[in-house]
């Protein structure tokens, strides 16, 4: 099989039977500290693959689009072929790793709300943190796609946290990669394993790559422990997280908006002389029964054209923030 890509802990092969698929093989290598620390642990690839299989299947079952198709023999999974976005998404619930170092804050502080951060995939510059503004200005990704990634990441955070909570484990943080399939569906790609997430048992005992980073304990036994716990978790007991999107419908520019005009006059009567113009539109708060996917966004567009807005006189947009 042809190797398409070789990363630090994975190899990607072309699927000889389909152009739209790839085979991802998990290797035994573990790296840390931006590649400064590197070691092989026999059997690590297989466990990371086992855990990815469990977690991708779980997320798919909850309605989140991933690249995962099925498990193959050995440490391999069959996946949809995607164009990977050049940005990695990190979601943090508790301060650990680079965040603590960056701001000089002690490990273990829990955020009130999960934090989503972006990092550019750029080994030469050590995968630097990047803002949304910089991403869009560098033309790496669109603002809409980034908003979508944030929503999916937070959704995954909910589902992973709930599953781990069943077994009294804590999801500290995790990294995701996303990609676009041939039919323009945005999916979660890469892997979901202790190589890419921090999971604590008890107060702060790591069951993840921190075992290697910090040189404490046996990596294989920590990974195996997490796998065995996940294997007995009950995905069906995790409740669906209802998500809300906003649809905003506004009068097109150039079209008179009488409700806005009478509102403007009323505001002037109240003495707000600074008001120059008022346009009145509508906001729809739509609660969904499932996570937001590319298909949901397509459906929202159709909903807008068919019912929520009158395309002749109004414009519409979906707000995910």
């Amino acid at each position, binding site marked *: 099989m042809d190797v398409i890509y070789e990363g630090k802990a994975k190899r990607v092969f072309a699927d000889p039977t389909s152009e739209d698929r790839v085979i991802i093989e998990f290797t035994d290598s573990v790296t840390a500290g931006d590649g400064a620390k590197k070691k092989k642990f026999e059997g690590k690839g297989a466990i990371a693959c086992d855990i990815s299989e469990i977690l991708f299947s779980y997320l798919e079952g909850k309605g989140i689009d991933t690249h995962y198709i099925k498990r193959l023999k050995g440490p391999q999974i069959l996946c949809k072929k995607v164009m990977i976005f050049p940005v990695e998404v990190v979601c943090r619930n508790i301060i650990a790793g680079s965040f603590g170092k960056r701001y000089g804050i002690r490990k273990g502080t829990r955020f009130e709300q999960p934090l989503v951060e972006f990092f550019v995939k750029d080994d030469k510059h050590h995968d630097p943190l990047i803002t949304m503004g910089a991403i869009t200005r560098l033309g790496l990704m669109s603002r809409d796609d980034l908003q979508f990634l944030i929503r999916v990441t937070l959704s995954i955070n909910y589902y992973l946290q709930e599953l781990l909570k069943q077994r009294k484990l804590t999801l500290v943080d995790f990294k995701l990669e996303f990609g676009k399939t041939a039919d323009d569906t945005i999916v979660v790609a890469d892997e979901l394993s202790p190589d890419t997430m921090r999971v604590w048992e008890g107060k702060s005992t790591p069951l993840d790559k921190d075992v290697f980073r910090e040189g404490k304990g046996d990596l294989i036994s920590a990974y195996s422990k997490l796998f065995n716990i996940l294997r007995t978790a009950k995905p069906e007991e995790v409740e669906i997280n209802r998500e809300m999107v906003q649809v905003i419908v506004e009068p097109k520019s150039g*079209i*008179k*908006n*009488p*409700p806005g*005009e*009478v509102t403007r006059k009323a505001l002037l009567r109240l003495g707000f002389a600074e008001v120059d113009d008022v346009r009145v539109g509508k906001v729809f708060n739509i609660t969904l029964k499932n996570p937001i996917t590319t298909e949901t966004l397509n459906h929202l567009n159709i909903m807008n054209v*068919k*019912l*929520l807005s*009158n395309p*002749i*006189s109004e414009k519409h947009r979906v707000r995910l923030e």
Partner: protein
Amino acid sequence: MAIAVLRYPGTNNEDDVIRSLSLISGADPYLVPSRKGLAGLEKADGIFIPGGFSYGDYLRAGAVASVETITEGVRDLAENGLPIMGVCNGFQILVEMGLLPGALLPNESAHFICKWVYLKVSDKPTLFTEGIEGAVLRMPIAHAEGNYYCSDEELEAISDENRVPFKYCDESGYVDDSSNPNGSIQNIAGVLSQKGNVLGLMPHPERASRPILGSTDGLPILENFVRATKC
């Protein structure tokens, strides 16, 4: 001929319409509640969508009714050439479903307007204006969203294709801004579909169809509609 008079939840002009149509010889109007779906249209030779406030005018006037099952049946029958008339909220439903061009926006004053207006009938012949070409009619309007709007291209098309049978005017038939009650583009009060078999208008011909109502100017429009159902 059998004329289906549709009633959506919130329609309230159906009785006036049925009564006015009943007085025209050969017309057999019957009430069709929208929940009947496509079955309600089976024997129809013509369809009348009366005014009112279908679905409480929620979302936009006519928007919710425009996606009902029975409305899909109206679309199919329109394509088959059946005469169809929508008045006031009926007109709003027809534009929302795209059977007629344009949109009906809130009145320029942002007020509900209920008053008598004059309409200049187009000189050119249409299915609904036979015998009244070029006339000035007196009829009432009663609406909050009757401000007709369409794109410049659409406006050119409907004007060129003689699809604007009614315009708001003054008593002498002069069409200008001072006789425009609601801000409609070029004083448009009614439009026709491309085939000419579907008419939508904001003024109420059924409320101007008997002497006791103060005008009979709307009657010829209804008579032409009934006659068309026999073709």
